[in-house]
């Protein structure tokens, strides 16, 4: 009936319209779902925004949710730029949190400043190494990094589970499987009521923007992303660049682990990453890997999440409605990508040969 042909006729304006339609499509589709479970979608959307902007407290909560998303997205974007599909941010966050917690729990007598620095550095290194393992195997044996990094998540999580219910179990918890709360000198200081991770996030975004666009290594990463052969022809040491950049990618994710345990949770649990590593893949992708846009995309996803928590108590509906909305937006936006690049044409036998590729 229909054929799919590549289109080149679309103006910028038209493709913008496509994307706006896609987002409204997502909102409408989610509205239908919300109506089906018996609520007024407009009310729900409005109170989701109210849940993030309605009071200083709620706004701060949204920022606190945005911080780990932003830094993790930065880490993922470095890897994605080289078409290295790092799905392992979740595990890298966990391992970073693990290393930071080791110092917080067992060397808490070190003075605050030094202790925090140790936690920070060890988290970055451990997260980096956790990412470096699959990168090394890819460089050496050509293993599939998507599967490898994904599986590393589960290893990290089960390892923490072991610690939580085993050797690191809080002896004062009467047998409950939990790790003790950190002492106060292992807690990140706050600025304007939010732990200083937000300042780190801003600094990292600026550094990342400069790194990718203004430095030689940033340029090399971009070239490798476009074509490895070109990079090789230009005399770049592709393997070395990939390995060092993945180390950076994992290190950024590892830092997130430190910010979460020290700034937010004040303890470690195997749920420390809480899906951030996966949500950040979405935000990174939606932001087109660009550091400044990542800030906006992550903040808006944080708003969605915070709003989702709010509607749970306000309407007694599950916070997963917010996740459905996130999923819908991603689905529709990626779907619109198809219609921007291809179009459907009614099948006529004469034109059959001209048709490029069928899905």
């Amino acid at each position: 009936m229909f054929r799919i042909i590549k289109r080149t006729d679309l103006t910028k304006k038209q493709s913008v319209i496509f994307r706006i339609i896609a987002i409204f499509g997502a909102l409408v589709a989610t509205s239908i779902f919300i109506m089906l479970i018996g609520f007024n979608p407009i009310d729900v959307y409005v109170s989701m925004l109210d849940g993030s902007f309605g009071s200083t407290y709620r706004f701060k909560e949204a920022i606190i949710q945005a911080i780990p998303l932003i830094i993790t997205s930065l880490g993922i974007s470095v890897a994605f730029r080289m078409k290295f599909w790092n799905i392992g941010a979740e595990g890298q966050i966990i391992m970073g949190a693990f290393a930071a917690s080791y110092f917080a729990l067992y060397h808490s007598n070190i003075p605050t400043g030094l202790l925090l620095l140790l936690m920070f550095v060890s988290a970055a290194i451990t997260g980096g190494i956790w990412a470096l393992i699959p990168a090394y195997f890819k460089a050496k044996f050509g293993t599939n990094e998507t599967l490898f990094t994904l599986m590393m998540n589960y290893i990290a999580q089960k390892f923490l589970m072991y610690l939580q219910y085993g050797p690191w179990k809080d002896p004062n918890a009467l047998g409950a499987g939990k790790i003790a709360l950190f002492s106060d000198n292992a807690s990140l200081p706050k600025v304007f009521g939010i732990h200083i991770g937000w300042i780190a996030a801003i600094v990292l975004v600026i550094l990342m923007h400069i790194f990718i666009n203004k430095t030689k290594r940033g340029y090399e990463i971009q070239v490798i992303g476009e074509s490895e052969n070109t990079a090789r022809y230009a005399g770049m040491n592709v393997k070395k660049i990939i390995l060092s950049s993945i180390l950076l990618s994992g290190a950024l994710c590892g830092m997130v682990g430190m910010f979460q345990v020290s700034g937010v949770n004040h303890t470690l649990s195997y749920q420390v990453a809480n899906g951030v590593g996966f949500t950040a893949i979405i935000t990174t992708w939606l932001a087109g890997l660009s550091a400044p846009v990542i800030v906006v995309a992550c903040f808006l996803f944080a708003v969605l999440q915070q709003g989702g928590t709010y509607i749970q108590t306000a309407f007694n509906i599950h916070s997963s409605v917010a996740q459905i909305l996130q999923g819908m937006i991603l689905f529709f936006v990626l779907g619109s990508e198809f219609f921007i690049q291809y179009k459907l044409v009614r099948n006529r036998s004469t034109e059959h040969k001209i048709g490029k590729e069928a899905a």
Partner: protein
Amino acid sequence: MKRLTALMLTIVFVCMAVLSGCGLSATDNSENSSSTSTASGTTASGSSSTDANGLKVGFIYIGSVGDVGYTYAHDQGRKYLETTLKDKNITTLAVENVPETAEVEKSINNLIDQGCKAIFATSFGYMDFVEKAAKDHPDVKFFHCSGNKSNGTNFVNYFGQIEEGRYLSGIVAGLKTKTNKIGYVAAMQIPEVIRGIDFFTLGVRSVNPDAVVNVKWTNTWYDPQVEKDAATALLNEGNDVIAQHQDSTAAQIAAQEKNAFAIGYNSDSSKAAPKAYLTAPVWNWGVYYVDQVQKILDGTWKAENYLGGMKDGVVDIGPMTDLVDADIKAKVEEAKKKILDGSLNVLAGPIKDQTGAVKIPEGKVMTVEEQQSCKWFVEGVNGKINK
């Protein structure tokens, strides 16, 4: 291309945000009315907790209210609170599926942000986070279920002498088993769970001294698959009655599949496994919730820890199904009557531990402190507690 996508996406979001910002002045009351009317079903007229006689009460649950178990029982209590104090302008807000992590603190702060002045946190692992929140919010009253900490001003713990219900359900299991092997699927190695196993076993052995109770740990409060696997393993080892300390009904379902019998927990779950379910130790939290909230409204509330028994109605043994023979029912009713009139105290000695050593001597009763730090199994339990 992609960059543009993201840009557009964000622009639309910003538009949404701005739009709602315009509507915010109007939202202010819609927020109140939506949260009060939909969450509670009462028709509070956009009022906040500062009303003369009105109170917003928050509940934090470890599981889902649909678990027909622990969380369900608490939620029944919440509903009972709402209907009983309907004309007192009580609003309740509930958050489900809050893990025993820093999420607790966040959920508490969210509830306080929405105006809650009393918060019931219903899982053991919430304790340290509740303690911290109580320090940060001296104007809010915190009730922590099943723990052992309190601060004497705005943070108390509450629980019930569920051991009485456990003991009675043990009588049912002890008389029902043919193999003299009873399986017990248990969540965490904490005193609350250990005590449950101990007094269940004492109930079993009070009528059947030859029976043993085999314990399997799951390390989770709520994971139906893990719970079911543990129950199935116990059934395969020859246990023909399964008891449990979990938040779901998975163990009962496993028993039904293997044509065995099951003792539930928390609430009447006869519908989940009609061919296996015998009875269960159950909670009636509403009794306590109404009492405390009423006292807050009256201004007579004091920071007192609570441990209520069958006499208060907080704990009970659920209705016994037709699978329980009449003579067993009679034995249970008889023991229940003795508990109610005080002639039977399940906590009284002599109680021996697994090694046969007397832990609670004759004439002594297990104290609250001994209960809250109980880390030993009684004689007749086949299981291990990690140090």
